[in-house]
């Protein structure tokens, strides 16, 4: 694929990997968290961690949008889908996320009309094609996907589509990072910042990480070379004793973000007082709901969603995995009771989830190497 393969060059990868080996202090153990699930996916898909020295450990952070959806919200989605006359639409990787009352896939098998879409605009199209049905878009994601939901709602309003609604689960990236950094059991040396989110919010919102918590941040792209280079940049900062926000993904990420997208978010959404995160609990000002101007499109207002908080299963340690306190395989139920076929926790659902990524791709890379 043109313009992409250049960032997957194995030869350059080897060069970068040897630079990394040269830049680490032999006796020191480095823990670097990649915040974004997209990075986790790339790391496993290309075996990037295979190229790193043993004392550089990548910790998978809370940036997998479906992984942080609490069980109660899935139940809310199912309840709406079971309402007469509703078509619920969602992204593909939401389909297998377990709630307290099952998954969307199971609700679909039981008769609910749940359809997978690739974009909220597809959901709007379904609404136009089915004027006698209510079409609800189950919106998930960080600032990355929120603008596309916002633009779709603006279009629905402009076109006067009366049967399109949004069940909003959009979240913001900074509050969970702050919550994570406040966590006393956290031991991280630096962060690889989320590239896609940063295309919208910019690099500036991450300045608090070096300023308040003394950890370096490098905003990274999503190709394997991007990630290797970002790891290298984090390690360089540590070696040089620097601590700042650097932008490896400058080909896409402007330091101040995308003002047009930010304006759209401002118009369509407002911050909730608090929102529940899977495994992390309630975090203040971390979730988005539709603003008063878009109240007519808010599925939470149109339907009586149960809104019940469902406690995470006792055995599930998704929270610790999301915080990077334990590796996926250290979870008590990893790979035995909790598998991609029968996930207990959300980290096992999406291929971006730390547990699923490790289970599907990474099971042996840390264990053995073929020379």
């Amino acid at each position: 694929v043109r313009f992409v393969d250049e960032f997957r060059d194995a030869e350059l990868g080897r060069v970068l990997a040897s630079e990394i080996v040269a830049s680490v202090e032999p006796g020191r153990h480095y823990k670097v968290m990649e915040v974004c699930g997209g990075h986790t996916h790339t790391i496993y898909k290309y075996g990037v961690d295979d190229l790193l020295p043993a004392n550089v450990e990548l910790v998978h952070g809370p940036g997998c949008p479906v992984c942080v959806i609490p069980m109660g919200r899935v139940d809310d989605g199912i309840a709406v889908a079971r309402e007469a006359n509703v078509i619920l639409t969602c992204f593909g990787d939401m389909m297998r996320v377990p709630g307290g009352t099952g998954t969307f896939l199971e609700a679909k098998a039981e008769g609910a009309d749940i359809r997978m879409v690739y974009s909220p605009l597809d959901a709007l199209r379904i609404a136009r094609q089915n004027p006698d049905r209510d079409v609800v878009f189950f919106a998930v994601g960080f600032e990355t996907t929120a603008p596309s939901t916002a633009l779709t709602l603006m279009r629905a309003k402009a076109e006067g589509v009366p049967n399109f609604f949004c069940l909003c689960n959009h979240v913001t990236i900074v509050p969970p990072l702050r919550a994570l950094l406040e966590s006393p059991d956290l031991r991280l040396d630096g962060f690889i910042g989320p590239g896609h989110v940063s295309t919208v919010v910019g690099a500036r919102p991450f300045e608090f990480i070096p300023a308040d918590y003394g950890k370096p941040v490098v905003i990274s792209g999503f190709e394997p070379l991007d990630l290797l280079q970002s790891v290298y940049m984090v390690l360089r900062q540590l070696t040089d004793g620097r601590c700042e926000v650097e932008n490896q993904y400058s080909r896409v990420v402007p330091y101040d973000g995308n003002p047009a997208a930010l304006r759209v978010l401002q118009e369509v959404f407002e911050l909730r007082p608090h929102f529940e995160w899977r495994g992390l609990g309630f975090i203040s000002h971390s979730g988005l709901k539709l603003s008063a101007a878009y109240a007519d499109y808010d599925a939470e207002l149109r339907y009586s969603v149960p809104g019940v908080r469902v406690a995470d299963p006792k055995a599930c340690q998704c929270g610790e995995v999301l915080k990077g306190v334990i590796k996926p395989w250290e979870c008590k139920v990893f790979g035995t009771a909790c598998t991609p076929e029968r996930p207990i926790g959300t980290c096992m659902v999406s291929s971006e989830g730390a547990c699923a990524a490790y289970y599907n791709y990474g099971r042996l890379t840390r264990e053995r190497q073929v020379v």
Partner: protein
Amino acid sequence: MDDHEARTPGTPLAVRGRRGQYGDTAPEGTVPPAGRGGGEAGLRLAGTGAGQDREQHALGLIERVRAKPARFRDERITMAHGAGGKATLTLIEGLLAPAFGLGELDDAAHVDGLALTTDSFVVKPIRFPGGSIGELAVNGTVNDLAVSGARPLALTLSLVLEEGLSADDLRAEVEAIARAAEAAEVDIVAGDTKVVERGKCDSMYVCTTGIGRLDPRASLSPSSIQPGDRILVSGRVGDHGTAVMLARGEFELEAAVESDTRPLWTAVDALLEAAGPSLRCLRDATRGGVASALNELARSSGVAMLVREARVPVHAAVAGACEILGVDPMYVANEGVLVAFVAPGAATAALEALAAVPGCEDAAEIGEVRSEPPGIVLVETAFGGRRVMDLLVGDPLPRIC
């Protein structure tokens, strides 16, 4: 409508207790726990220390869980049960195979020198670039026979038609079936037709049952796969599934991708001629793609497989479309690609013979069989890293981010 069946040669057919066939699925099998330490020459433990030991222990536990016979515990059938991944496997190994006393499962059942297989075809839309449901129904079944080492002889054909289907569409598919049968050199010898109310089926479903004569040169079986064997594919992977996905028009994405639907007996014939007994096993990489075929065989044969991603032939447009959709071409369905396992000494000759078959020009050697870790398919990524390539649970679900 009444059934109309012609006599097929051979003895009465019974499958019970013999080598059976059920869908495109894997044999019931046990996977030995992942080898610890030692193992194949060239494998070594990366690093030491308590962390690694505990990780090994956790991985050992997982392999033990995976090795247990699949149990079918789902309350309802979901779309995942039809996708050819783990959920399908659970359905077959946990419910169907035990109910019918089927042992080793393969692409076709072998009964007294004959091979027998059956398949149902549901595809939406019924016509897509490069083919249609009628062609699939012929090629899918003759290919199951071919990869079991049998020359296809005859097919039966069942049609389930939706009320309101246009006669032109039906005529077009019947003609497509006739043309495909002629190209595959099989006769359609019996059939059945049912019509269901509008909305009870999607235009038309087609079921075909095929019978073939086992080729005396062939002794193909998953159990003959040995470490050192080379893995060949007969063409570019992912074309069919990508063409169908794009033809559904659910994404605003266009690419010049055509289904690869084609009969594979000529390719099998060429392989048998070139490699003879060195040809160990063949598999039709349909639903679930090459990745699922390799996983099923690694599991049933208790071997490991190493695939070199850079050597896997993928059409640039397929690679691009899959990249955008967030799916891996290795898991995308094919309808005219086989995977062949050949002893190392015969691999070059087999590949040359295969590449000379029309439609198989892009055939390639994509990897090899190893002994460790058993039951696992590993990929050496084009980037130089290494990862596991496991069975998917169900359909590949696109990622959002």
